[in-house]
């Protein structure tokens, strides 16, 4: 910390403290100490305060305890001569600032409930997204966990002009980073500049306009604090672990654009506590020695065209950028971008026309690598707003290639096409749907480039199994229908093959420790009948992933002799988990919720929990925000079982696993399932009934209660009795 910076940060902290305490006194008088305050839909209260101090701020009265701590942290000003050491006081002032600002933002939520939007998307009337709710935090958090997003840039202020803003934003997107925006510089705001430049902002494009003020920093740092608690298993109040977790695992930094005020410095000092350095475009003093951050703390006077590269270097981040030879920006950050209405140049599939994506395995001599052929009209042959049928036909050949890997390659088409800026892709196989924006066409994009993308990315991501890729793109109705026919026949065979996979018939399971970057003791064991709890990795995926990267996070596990058949315990599995969890977990059961259930990282799609009064089990998925009969919302449940912990009575799992024969088989399987959110039940109705039938129960789905029946055990019990739910007559669960 330089003296100038420390002095300014301390001054800024005092200004903010005075302002917030004044405001607080005012609202306290108006609403009283019992008035509830907080951010929306979160189990983490005011997350920075909760993470650092362990204080759950539920109402205005609770703020007193926080102020008491924050005031003690506020240091006296730095003397001009013979000053006392200032680094530590400035860092403390930074933390106090964050506590004060979190309360200030919570007061704003109280006084102006509509100031911030509640979802992921901005509107024409309002750009400010405010604090991410837990659904967003977990969904996006998964990307931090699996590496799709290595970190975030907190952008303060504004660029000199909208073009520069757009350029910086795109550069950050190309590095797969999230961009969290707040504060204004000379009355200009980075997020507004992006909108003016025609850039889509919102969570979907990773350009997150948190708020108009510098206090929006607390939304970014609150996100980081929550990630440590949700995925890293860090307990609230364990500030040291939380901050070191962030320093080591969340690759975030601050880009300060424009004049750095005292208040900015105060916030920057707060960020430095997390190990997040500051890169400024103005000539402020630098702080180069290492220590709190991995490398430099403040680097300044960086030209705009070098800022992103500099920030990444200073943060110590390695980003592998994919160069795909197409005229569009390309990367995961563009995956969530929408193409709508007048912007559409060409639309294929989605019920308007037929679309199909299909890949086939060929002999090496049958494929000419890199050949891309268009059969039918190209995009340049049709006017804006057109529709065409489309078949994407991919021939692959490779010495390590197996028939089983084809569905994996095929499923990638969705992401890979979506990564291109100006392309929107939904679905897969014969229900795929693509929209191509006018802006993409203007930049020179043609249908041929879809082939270019697949060729480049298959080689990059699957180079170990794929040697040759050849793509044919059909837009002729008749050709498309021919491909569709061939594809549908193959899909049927493939589905039968997957349905036939059983844990008993395979000797090798796979591990998935992808999440260990965030939950160091978590190990997923993926079996043919049990997908990873995130739902993203099934047994075949893991098998292919191992072929592709033999030292990667998916390792084969020789399951070895059965220890407990009912529970799903194998000697080899437990031995592997013990080693891979660094000794934290000794035994796991694949099929039990009560006895040695598998660990949960935090990115599970669903959590199952025992309901003792109903003698059954409930499950809830992360899209359901309401209360559940176990007394906790998804997010609270997730908070208590995530982070690589083993919690008997609770287990994380994928949606898909509910329809498996092995779902909590040790406790009686699907017959124990007494409650789930209605939407999830409808999505899985067919599977539920199918599994019920195997166990001799007709119409299983209708016997399961949901939130329309009740959200307490007492409320759903009469329903279960009325429906004759099998769980009620089973042996006692606990």
């Amino acid at each position, binding site marked *: 910390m330089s003296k100038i910076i420390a002095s300014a940060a301390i001054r800024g902290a005092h200004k903010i403290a005075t302002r917030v305490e004044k405001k607080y006194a005012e609202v306290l008088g108006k609403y009283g100490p019992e008035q509830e305050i907080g951010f929306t839909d979160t189990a983490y209260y005011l997350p920075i305060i909760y993470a650092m101090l362990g204080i759950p701020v539920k109402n205005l009265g609770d703020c007193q305890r926080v102020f008491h701590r924050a005031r003690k942290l506020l240091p006296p000003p730095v003397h001009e001569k*013979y000053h006392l050491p200032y680094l530590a006081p400035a860092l403390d002032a930074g933390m106090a600032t964050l506590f004060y600002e979190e309360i200030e933002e919570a007061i704003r939520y109280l006084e102006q409930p509509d100031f911030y939007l509640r979802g992921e998307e901005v509107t024409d009337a309002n750009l400010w997204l405010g604090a991410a709710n837990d659904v967003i935090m977990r969904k996006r958090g998964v990307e931090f966990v699996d590496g799709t997003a290595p970190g975030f840039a907190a952008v303060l202020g504004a660029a000199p002009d909208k073009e520069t803003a757009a350029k910086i934003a795109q550069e950050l997107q190309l590095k797969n980073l999230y961009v969290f925006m707040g504060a204004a510089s000379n009355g200009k705001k980075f997020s507004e500049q992006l909108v003016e430049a025609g850039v889509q902002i919102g969570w979907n494009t990773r350009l997150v306009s948190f708020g108009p003020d510098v206090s929006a920093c607390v939304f970014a740092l609150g996100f980081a604090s929550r990630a440590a608690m949700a995925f890293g298993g860090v307990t609230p109040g364990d500030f040291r672990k939380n901050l070191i977790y962030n320093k080591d695992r969340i690759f975030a930094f601050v880009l300060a654009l424009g004049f750095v005020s005292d208040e900015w410095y105060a916030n920057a000092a707060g960020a430095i506590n997390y190990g997040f350095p500051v890169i400024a475009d103005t000539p402020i003093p630098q702080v180069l020695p*290492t220590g709190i951050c991995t490398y430099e703390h403040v680097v300044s006077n960086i030209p705009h065209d070098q800022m992103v590269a500099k920030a990444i270097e200073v943060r110590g981040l390695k980003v592998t950028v994919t160069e795909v030879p197409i005229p569009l920006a390309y990367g995961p950050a563009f995956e969530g971008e929408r193409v709508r209405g007048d912007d559409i140049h060409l639309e294929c599939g989605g019920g308007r026309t037929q679309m199909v994506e299909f890949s086939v395995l060929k002999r090496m001599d049958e494929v000419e690598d890199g050949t891309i052929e268009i059969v039918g009209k190209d995009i340049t042959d049709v006017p804006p707003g057109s529709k065409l049928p489309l078949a994407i036909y991919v021939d692959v050949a490779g010495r390590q290639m197996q028939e089983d890997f084809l569905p994996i390659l095929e499923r990638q088409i969705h992401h890979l096409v979506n990564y291109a800026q100006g392309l929107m892709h939904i679905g897969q196989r014969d229900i795929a749907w693509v929209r191509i924006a006018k802006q993409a066409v203007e930049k020179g994009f043609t249908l041929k480039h879809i082939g270019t993308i697949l060729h480049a990315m298959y080689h990059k991501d699957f180079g170990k199994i794929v040697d040759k890729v050849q793509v044919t793109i059909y837009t002729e109705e008749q050709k498309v229908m021919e491909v569709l026919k061939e594809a549908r026949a193959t899909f049927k065979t493939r589905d039968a093959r997957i349905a036939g996979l059983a844990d008993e018939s395979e000797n090798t399971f796979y591990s998935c420790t992808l999440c*260990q970057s965030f939950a160091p003791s978590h190990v997923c064991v993926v079996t043919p009948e049990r997908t990873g709890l995130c739902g993203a990795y099934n047994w075949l995926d893991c098998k292919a992933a191992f072929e592709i990267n033999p030292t990667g996070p998916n390792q084969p596990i020789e399951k070895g002799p059965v220890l407990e058949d009912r529970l799903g315990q194998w000697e080899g599995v437990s031995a592997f988990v013990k080693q891979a969890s660094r000794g934290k977990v000794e035994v796991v059961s694949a099929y039990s919720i009560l006895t040695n259930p598998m660990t949960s990282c935090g990115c599970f799609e669903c959590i199952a929990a025992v309901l003792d009064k109903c003698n059954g089990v409930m499950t809830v998925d992360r899209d359901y925000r309401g209360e559940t009969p176990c007394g906790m919302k998804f997010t609270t449940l997730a908070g208590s079982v995530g982070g690589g912990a083993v919690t008997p009575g609770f287990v994380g799992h994928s949606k898909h696993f509910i329809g498996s024969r092995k779902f909590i088989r040790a406790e009686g399987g699907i017959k124990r399932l007494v409650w789930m959110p209605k939407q999830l039940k409808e999505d899985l109705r067919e599977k539920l009934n199918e599994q019920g039938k195997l166990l001799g129960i007709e119409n299983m789905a209708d016997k399961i209660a949901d939130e329309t029946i009740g959200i307490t055990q007492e409320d759903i019990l009469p329903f279960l009795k009325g429906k004759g739910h099998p769980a009620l007559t089973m042996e006692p669960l606990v």
Partner: protein
Amino acid sequence: MAQKQDKDTGKEKAPEKLLSVCDATLHMIGKARKEGISTAFDRAESMKACPIGADGSCCKNCAMGPCRVPATKKGEEPDKVGVCGATPATIAARNFARMVAAGSSAHCDHARGVAAVFLLAAQGKIPGYGIKDVQKLLQLGMDFGLDVEKMTLQEIAIKVGELCAAEFGKQEGDLVFTRRAPLKRQELWRKNNLMPRGIDREIVDLMHRTHMGVDQDYQNLITQAGRVALVDGWGGSMIATELQDIMFGTPVPITGTINLGVLKQDEVNIIVHGHDPLIAEMVVVACQDPEMIALAKAQGAKGINLAGMCCTANEVLMRHGIPIAGNFLQQELAIITGVVDAMVVDVQCEMQSIHQVAECFHTEIITTSPKAKIEGATHIEFDEHDAINSAKKIVTAAIARFPKRKGKADIPRETSQMVVGFSHETINYLLGGSFRASYRPLNDNIIGGRIRGIAGVVGCNNARTVHDQSHLVLIKELIKNDVIVLTTGCSAMACGKAGLLTPEAAKYCGSGLAEVCEAVGIPPVLHMGSCVDNSRILIAASAVVKEGGLGDDISDLPAAGCAPEWMSEKAIAIGHYFVASGVYTIFGVTFPTTGSKVVTDYLFQELEEKWGGMWGFAKDPLEMARMMIAHIDKKRKALGIDKARERVLFDMAMRRELDAV
């Protein structure tokens, strides 16, 4: 007229400017000479040191001697032995060991007194003393294996007091604080017979061995001296520091003022001088007492000005911001200003001459310890059971002297500002704040090369070398080469007077160290306290090792120690515990074993292989710096941090490899 000739030798006196680099000191030496007052500066010139004694070649341990076995002119081992046959090596080692014993005794007896008062305070028997640092009390409780969660604070305090007191008379088992050292160091101590047992036991053991006709193997003697030194560093000194911190507060950074200019013409000036804060703490309270201030005013003074000298000064400076009048060689000079109404002394480093000098003025010398009386001085024994009244009695006596001032007062103008109070706990906090406190930034910057290494520069003044000069030349050279300096005792005061204890001193630093100082807001030279507080340096060094990345023992650190102007036996004890803790330690002026090349080679070379640390000697401070930096570079090379570090960029796979925090 100033006396130009020495009255004993008749020789021309050295020009004043060759005696000190401190202007206030030079000014006062001038006044002393003018007024015919004898000071240590003049006596050091008129009385040459005995060369045989200085080299450790004189044995007077029995009445068949004293036997003299000086080295040959070429510095070779003489072929003479003592009457009993004691070799020059045995004689030098025995003399050296006895210095260590005396020095350790001083610190340990000080600690025993602190422990006794601490226990009384814990029992609630002595009003005025209490517990200020609860955190540290709990830490000590845990160090002593107490189940602190099940005990009240008072129970913990009493138990800690009893256990600390028990360390002195312990017959079996290791000293408890040795467990704070890195594990590898503890193993080394065990392997080399260095692991200290009870404090008194080790000292008695050594006094026995050095009696005529007992231990006559110089290596065995040096080993036991090592064990005795360790009961000082990891025993007595550490107990004193820790208990003083609990009772009076662990120092935190604070600004202070130093040099004779802090004395005030129109106020009652009281100087607390010595090493023991137990008394001074109470004098601080008494001086702020309205009753005392009124008394002073009644005598025509504007108030009471308390100042410190020697390590008592460091103690009350760090905890209360009380100004320092000067270091060891300025004690007579303070009186010569004519405005010191009382000099209150406790124990250690009080020259008997202060009474002789005081005779020329109105100053009252007040002794307070039953262990440290001075013939002719006023003795007001300090009674800890009635501490505040003891202190008031002392202050009252001082006030009574104020109207008796005679002659023209002459207060030098010099004062310097300083930032002090860098305890281990404070450094830990300063490097990361309340939420990220750790030594990581220090280690990181050492590994990265901004900081080349760590030096401890400590110790006394010595009238046989230019006052303060070696401290300052050495320290400036070190910081110029990016070596951060930890300092205590009179060395710290020399730095304070020269402005090195301010953040502004970064201008003397190399660019790397300057950047770190600017980042943290610290001076390049950190004042860690009094000479018992050298134990803080041991704790800090252990903390650096534990933080990781710089080896697994103190001896792996790129660090070195030095006492360039040492004079007391305590300094030898401190030096030897640093060596036994794995630190390369250099002394200046003279070295007390040079009469035996065998012993000196053992201390200066062979010891490193056994203990990881060794002694060194140089007269020239630049040479000292060169030796220390060469050693630091040697350690950097061994650690593999002598080359620029590559910036490591992390991808997800590398993040997965990280261990959970």
